[in-house]
């Protein structure tokens, strides 16, 4: 008992509370003198900025006014947005028909939202995108004429793909079905080329035809980003497979192409598409300006997608390739049935990030005179009646872009965690 302390012992202070509101504040905001000072300086600065911003954007703002003159001397001129929002969202699309681009936006949003649900990741997705795309372009163009050659070509393509991929795994009846489809397409195309079948097209014309140079605003941005990436996807996959190929010529071609595209800015491709594409084609063919921009975006996106997919391909263990070879699958079957389903699953989150990038980068098309969302916002500033309020319009446009990009980046983050649940420790 000798080591028991003698006499009075100094009482230690109780430990500092680090639970509850006070504890949280102490731990996260005032843990040291330096921290406390940072907190106070930042709080004052943020408070001052916010107070001024709210004063400008809400309290002193003008919400409706006949012309910009009535906004002078006040805060934000939201009346400008109120006046011009139809133009900013839909561009020069005929005014009475603007419900069409609105519905097209809704259709594209519905497609994107439906595809974000993992329960939809199966054959249903093809139907959603087929029907949705058809609706989108029908609404935008107003009339679509589907030529018989196109129908036959699609039959040949789908049938051929079915034969290649299901040849070794499908039931004989199914494989024969694909063969029949491909045969119909091939025979039909030959008959069409030799002139036995007449030039005929299926006219679907419920609305007035609207040319692409009248398109503008948000639908243009969404179409360029969505379909640019959608069309770039298969060719990006081919480039990635080519880059991983053991055949030297194929590999060289793909590496050269990918590095060339990734080494130059998108603007140079857009300028090239707008001035050089007409030179590339036989004289007399004119190519739509919107289509030129889409071609440039597709060329550009393909190279970036290829690099992402290559990352997915490289992440697969070698055993997957060897096992597929051992089962006697040919290259197409091995790639389509074993390799790509696993590789693509890994790259979905980075692909969404690329999509966000392209959603923003499509704004560059304004340089070659396409009226995307940023360009229509820009044009809204030109009106002399409303001159002098750039901040309002750009902040509004920035807000719309932010809503799209932020929600997509959150979704990509969620998906990354969700898809890795099986492999996470």
């Amino acid at each position, binding site marked *: 008992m000798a080591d028991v302390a003698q006499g009075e012992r100094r009482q230690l202070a109780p430990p500092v509370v680090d639970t509850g509101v006070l504890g949280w504040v102490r731990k996260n905001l005032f843990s040291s003198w330096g921290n406390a000072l940072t907190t106070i300086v930042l709080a004052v600065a943020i408070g001052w900025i916010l107070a001024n911003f709210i004063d400008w954007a809400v309290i002193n703002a003008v919400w409706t006014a006949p012309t910009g003159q009535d906004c002078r001397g006040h805060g934000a001129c939201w009346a400008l947005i109120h006046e011009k929002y139809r133009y900013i969202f839909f561009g020069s699309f005929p005014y009475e028909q603007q419900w069409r681009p609105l519905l097209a936006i809704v259709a594209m949003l519905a497609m994107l939202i439906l595809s974000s649900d993992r329960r939809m990741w199966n054959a249903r997705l093809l139907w959603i995108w087929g029907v949705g795309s058809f609706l989108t372009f029908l609404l935008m163009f107003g009339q679509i004429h589907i030529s018989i050659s196109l129908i036959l070509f699609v039959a040949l393509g789908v049938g051929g793909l079915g034969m290649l991929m299901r040849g070794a795994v499908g039931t004989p009846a199914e494989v024969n079905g694909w063969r029949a489809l491909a045969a119909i397409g091939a025979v039909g195309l030959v008959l069409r080329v030799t002139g036995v079948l007449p030039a005929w097209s299926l006219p679907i014309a419920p609305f007035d035809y609207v040319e692409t140079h009248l398109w503008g605003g948000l639908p243009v941005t969404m179409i360029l980003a969505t379909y640019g990436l959608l069309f770039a996807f298969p060719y990006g996959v081919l480039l990635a497979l080519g880059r991983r190929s053991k055949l030297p010529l194929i590999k060289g071609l793909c590496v050269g192409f990918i590095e060339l595209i990734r080494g*130059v800015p998108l603007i*140079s491709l857009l300028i090239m598409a707008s001035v050089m594409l007409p030179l590339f084609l036989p004289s007399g063919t004119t190519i739509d300006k919107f289509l030129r921009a889409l071609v440039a975006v597709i060329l550009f996106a393909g190279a970036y997608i290829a690099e992402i997919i290559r990352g997915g391909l490289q992440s697969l263990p070698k055993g997957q390739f060897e096992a597929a070879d051992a089962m006697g699958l040919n290259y197409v079957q091995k790639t389509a049935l074993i390799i790509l389903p696993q590789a693509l699953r890994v790259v979905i989150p980075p692909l969404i990030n690329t999509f966000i990038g392209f959603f923003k980068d499509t704004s560059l098309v304004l*340089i070659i005179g396409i009226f995307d969302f940023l360009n229509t916002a820009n044009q809204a500033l030109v009106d002399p009646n409303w001159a002098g309020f750039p901040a309002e319009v750009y902040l509004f446009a920035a807000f719309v872009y*932010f809503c799209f990009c932020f929600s997509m980046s959150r979704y990509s983050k969620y998906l990354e965690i969700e898809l890795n649940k099986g492999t996470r420790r």
Partner: protein
Amino acid sequence: MAVEALGTTTRAKVAPWNDPFIRGWVFQIVVVALVGLLAWFLVSNTIENLERQKIASGFHYLEREAGFEIGDSMIAYSPSDTYARAILVGLLNTLKVAVLGIILATVLGTMIGVGRLSPNWLLAKICEGYVEMFRNVPLLLWLFLIYKMISEAFPGPRQAINVLDSFFLSNRGLYFPVPIADPIHKWMGLAFLIGVIATFLVKRWAKKRQDATGQPFPTIKTAIALIVGLPAVIWLLDGAPHHMSWPALKGFNFEGGTVIQPEFTALLLGLVLYTSAFVAEIVRSGILALHKGQTEAAMAIGLSRGQVMRLVLLPQALRIIVPPMTSQYLNITKNSSLAIAIGYPDLVAAVNVTINQTGQAIENILIIMAAYLSVSLSISAFMNWYNKRIALTER
């Protein structure tokens, strides 16, 4: 004998169309032939179209007189110079924006990225807000917004904000005095170079000494003394010549001094703000990828929070950070081409004027592509070399 017999029997006779080697080559030849056919189709169309539209070809136009003004030039340029020189001016402007942008975005991005990991909740949240705000809105929109704000919010030259009669801030840019060219400047430049080289030598010596004895050396103070002090001493020895060119209002604009133009400011600011958000995310994920034990061990040996970051975490995170950072540097270089949208005369803008004046699109686009490809490749080559240098040397 048996083995030989087995060998001959198992080597099955493969038909040529089933031999993977032959198949591979046939496939490659077909693909290359198709690509060649496409190229031939495009080239022959182009030649035909060029002849029909009577567009000249070849690079002879480069020696003709450009005849257009360039607002910002690092080398002497006038409209009577050749197209080649105009394009060179554009290229130098691109490089100027790219180099400054890379340095500033790295510094700002690292600060924001480290700030996001701060124990101070408010600071971390502000940095997070910054990243999300700049990352999720197109760069072009930021450029327009900043450029329009500069030209709308600042007064005209006559009402310029005047600081001490030497700095004039207006919607034409920031005018400020510069020294008039003097022969001593060359020697000061040389002294600066010597200072930089001496700093490198001192740093190497200091590291060697610290490795051997553990004694730190005030490298940063020495570096400042060498790099700033040497040119200053030369200047003082020459009697401190201080003839300055002062900006002054003449008519509708300023004359004299030098100017930072609003286009340049908007482009650089936009690029730096936008890219630093991406850099911040790279730095943050690089630091988060390190094992927690690194922080704990560093704190256990008594380093302060700043020292933990500077001496332990950042040097290790650098290895993770460098490859994605390279692609951000390439992005800055490529994105500087957005200059054309706000009227800054970079390479693409200069070449675009040339296309409109000469009509020779193909040659000009080849020039753009070649220039960007060589700049991109140089940056990647340098970063790959740096990456190798800092890579962990294992057994």
